[in-house]
């Protein structure tokens, strides 16, 4: 036997035991892998690995892995689990059965589970929003750690050029990396208060729509977003001239400037962008003066 092939065979058997089904994937069909000459094993070694299926120690190993994966998911997705109520463990076990283990880290396991839920078209709108919110929050945690751990990371360039509609090139903007907008049918404080107390929220609510922005650069990773901000961020999924984005989102330059300062939008001067003669920007203003409200 080679160590690599023995480990591959044992790993495949454990994955099968955890999932409760034969797995096919990058490693190939489990039974085919072990029953043919794919792995460099003697017949006896192959039989020993296959015989694990009837072994109590093997069963305990698989049980521990399932338990630990479920524990991690529950610990990292309290809002989603509260919303799913009695259904949560079944959904977690379904996910474990379908998706192989990929990480000992809580957040990666949890994000995988939330992605699995989002594939379900039958999720109610409020549940989908809660899952999206929690997923965005976990991703923001991961991205924030990565940002802070990156040495000499470049600070975003200050946009301080005078914006003159007639002569200056226009700003090209886009939503910054890791920024997500989630919309709810009720105030987020009301919703989160209920979920953190372990109580699912029912739908639909009759109140006005509310939006939350989640981003790794926000101090608490999220905050409520006025609807104009939410529309502007959503419109800027792809790079767009600021002028176009403001028109589509019915938002103001002040809104855009504040989002740029918060690093929720990125912006750069584009020399190629066509200028417009329409008076969209107060002449003589800079981004800094827009933010501060100072006179041009």
């Amino acid at each position, binding site marked *: 036997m080679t160590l*690599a092939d023995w*480990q591959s065979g044992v790993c495949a058997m454990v994955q099968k035991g955890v999932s409760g089904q034969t797995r096919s994937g990058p490693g190939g069909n489990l039974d085919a892998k072990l029953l043919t000459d794919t792995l460099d094993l003697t017949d006896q070694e192959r039989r020993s690995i296959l015989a694990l299926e009837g072994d109590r120690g093997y*069963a*305990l190993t698989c*049980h521990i892995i399932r338990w630990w994966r479920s524990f991690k998911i529950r610990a990292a997705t309290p809002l989603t689990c509260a919303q799913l109520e009695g259904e949560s463990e079944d959904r977690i076990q379904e996910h474990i059965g379908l998706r*192989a283990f990929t990480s*000992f*880290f809580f957040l990666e396991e949890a994000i995988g589970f939330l992605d699995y839920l989002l594939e379900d078209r039958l999720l109610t709108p409020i549940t989908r929003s809660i899952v999206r919110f929690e997923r965005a929050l976990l991703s923001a945690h991961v991205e924030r750690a990565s940002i802070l*751990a990156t040495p000499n990371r470049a600070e975003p360039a200050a946009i301080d050029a005078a914006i003159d509609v007639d002569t200056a090139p226009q700003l090209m903007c886009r939503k910054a990396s890791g920024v997500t907008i989630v919309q709810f049918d009720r105030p987020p404080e009301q919703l989160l208060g209920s979920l953190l107390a372990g109580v699912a929220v029912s739908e639909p609510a009759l109140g006005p729509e509310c939006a939350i922005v989640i981003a790794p650069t926000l101090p608490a990773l999220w905050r409520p977003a006025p609807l104009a901000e939410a529309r502007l961020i959503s419109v800027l999924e792809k790079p767009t001239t600021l002028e176009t984005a403001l028109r589509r989102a019915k938002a103001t330059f002040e809104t855009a400037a504040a989002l740029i300062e918060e690093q929720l939008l990125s912006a750069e001067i584009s020399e190629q962008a066509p200028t417009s003669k329409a008076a969209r920007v107060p002449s003589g203003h800079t981004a800094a003066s827009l933010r501060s409200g100072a006179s041009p």
Partner: protein
Amino acid sequence: MQDPKISQYPIPLGVGFTYSAVCIPAILAAEDVIDYLVLSPEQLCRESRTGDTRKFDLVEAEFNQFLEVLGDRPAVVHGLELSIGSAKSMEQACVDLIDRVHARRPFPWFSEHLSFLQVEEDDGTTSYPGAPLPVPLTDEALDIVSPRAEALRTRYGVPFLLENVTHYLPELPADKGRDEIDFLNDLTERSGCGLLLDLYNLHCNALNHGFDAREALSRLRLDRVIEIHVAGGQTHDGFQMDVHADVVSEDVWDLLEWTIPQTPNLAGVTYELLAEAFDVLGAEGVRGQLERAKGIWTASGRPISRQGAAQ
């Protein structure tokens, strides 16, 4: 006797405890008992990936909190995800992480588990069983693990220890009639790495696989043992489980008392407790375990030092 291949035996520190933010109340309540803290740096990280390449980013706020709680005591590092026993390669992200921790706070020794957690497949993808699995006791495994252990031993100029792990799988492939003890002896001889003797893990394996723990210990290279772990656990379906979630059993305390006099280079005894099990014992319960370990340590006549410098 000190083997020159194990560079710089650390001075004895005393009794240590596994750090987690949840257990800070216990650490503070036992400030006068704990001589060092054991840090598993992966627990203070977030993972990021580019394809199959992983990176572990330390969360600064959490690491700074650890340093504040540590104070002027030594920290020893006990990694979780190195997968030193994987056939094709171990986890480089772990080595990078330990490099960063060492740059911030040098340690008198560091350790990892003698196990594998990932398998690199022929198509270049990586599979994960989901739990640390034991390394077979073969010549090939020894050929693969020994140079890695030796490289780690020389990386920071302090001892690198490998820990015996619990497993529940039936008989592992073995060459030359080796058992777990023979393999550990061969490994430490070839690589110069030290041993982290987990007495609770040995106790679990002895119960689960039917051998005598003291007989096994009598054959182990106890002169290579630099750290001992003690812990408590639970049974499930007739197996003694490696869960570090309870008080240490009398059997394991007896093993510690029997073993310590035979470990001339021992530098620390660590009580391990999973963060998730802190509520089971509480701060007072943890202190009780640490005091008992300290009593055994002191009775053995070993000194206590908070300096942690290598000899």
